[in-house]
């Protein structure tokens, strides 16, 4: 199934134009498998040569390909770097929303306030003594901040997503 053990050497000799060497030609005379290999290699080699001659110059030269690779590399590194920034952008409004939610709950009248205060005290946090108006104000401020950040995030994510699709 695997042909002659000298096939690889014969193929190398044919490709190097050394199939006229005595040891090669002697083997070719006695081995039909290698004769087949040599014949095919010669014909394929001639076909490849004529094909390469017809191909002519490539549409883009080495310099153009190098620049394309360089720019793609640069773009992928930029994407990696801005990825961290985008995560931060996502995390900030999320954190602010959580803070605003907690503050809003704290500003609510009893029994909600009692329940949340009790929960916070259980986990070691203290809000005792904070006046209701301060809690309400901080809740409103946090909500406003969260809304602004979320709007800014959506506004910035949309055009970038389109750019990513285009590339």
């Amino acid at each position: 199934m695997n042909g002659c053990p000298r096939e690889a050497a014969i193929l190398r000799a044919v490709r190097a134009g050394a199939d006229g060497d005595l040891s090669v030609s002697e083997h070719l005379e006695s081995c039909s498998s290698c004769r087949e290999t040599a014949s095919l290699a010669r014909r394929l080699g001639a076909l490849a040569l004529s094909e390469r001659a017809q191909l002519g110059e490539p549409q883009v030269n080495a310099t153009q390909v190098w620049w394309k690779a360089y720019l793609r590399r640069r773009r992928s590194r930029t994407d990696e770097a801005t990825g961290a920034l985008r995560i931060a952008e996502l995390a900030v409004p999320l954190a602010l929303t959580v803070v605003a939610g907690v503050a809003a709950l704290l500003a609510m009248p009893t029994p909600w306030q009692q329940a949340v205060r009790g929960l916070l005290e259980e986990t070691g946090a203290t809000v005792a003594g904070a006046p209701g108006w301060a809690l309400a104000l901080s809740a409103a401020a946090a909500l406003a901040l969260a809304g602004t950040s979320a709007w800014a995030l959506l506004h910035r994510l949309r055009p970038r997503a389109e750019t990513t699709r285009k590339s």
Partner: protein
Amino acid sequence: MSLQNVLRQTTVQDAIAQPGEIMEPPAFQAFYDSTSAPLRSYLTRLAGSRTVAEDLAQEAFIRLMQASPRYESPAQLKSYLYRTATNLFTDRWRKRRREAPLDARPSEPAGDATVVDVDLERALDKLKPRDRAMVWLAYVEGLDHREIAGVFSVHERSVRVILFRARKKLASLLEKGGRS
């Protein structure tokens, strides 16, 4: 200018590819000059279209450059280049076959009226794309069985068997003048 823009510009500046991250231009020029024509010829033989071959070759070179620090010797680079090009062709071929069933090879002829061996071209077209690619790599590009196994991610023994069968099939087809 907002802080975000300042931050972004700083990051972009830092992100610019540094020298050495991709192959240096002189090294790439030398490699490109020695491999571009054979690669395009190989891909033309596979894809049956010079335009497709040009696109695939260009993409293969770009990918090679981005991965090149991991590949040191010219033989490794060449092997990686052919593996990438072959994978690009395979992906394209599969995609096109899904979209519209095709024969083993697209219709655009690889050569023109000056093709020297029409029988051989016809016989090659009768082989499966993978077998044709292996024959080309072994007989024209001189890749050994181990290298070809690397290109196609198959066992070396499978390469030996496939090449043996392909050679037998070609010999038989050529005896009949390239017709099955």
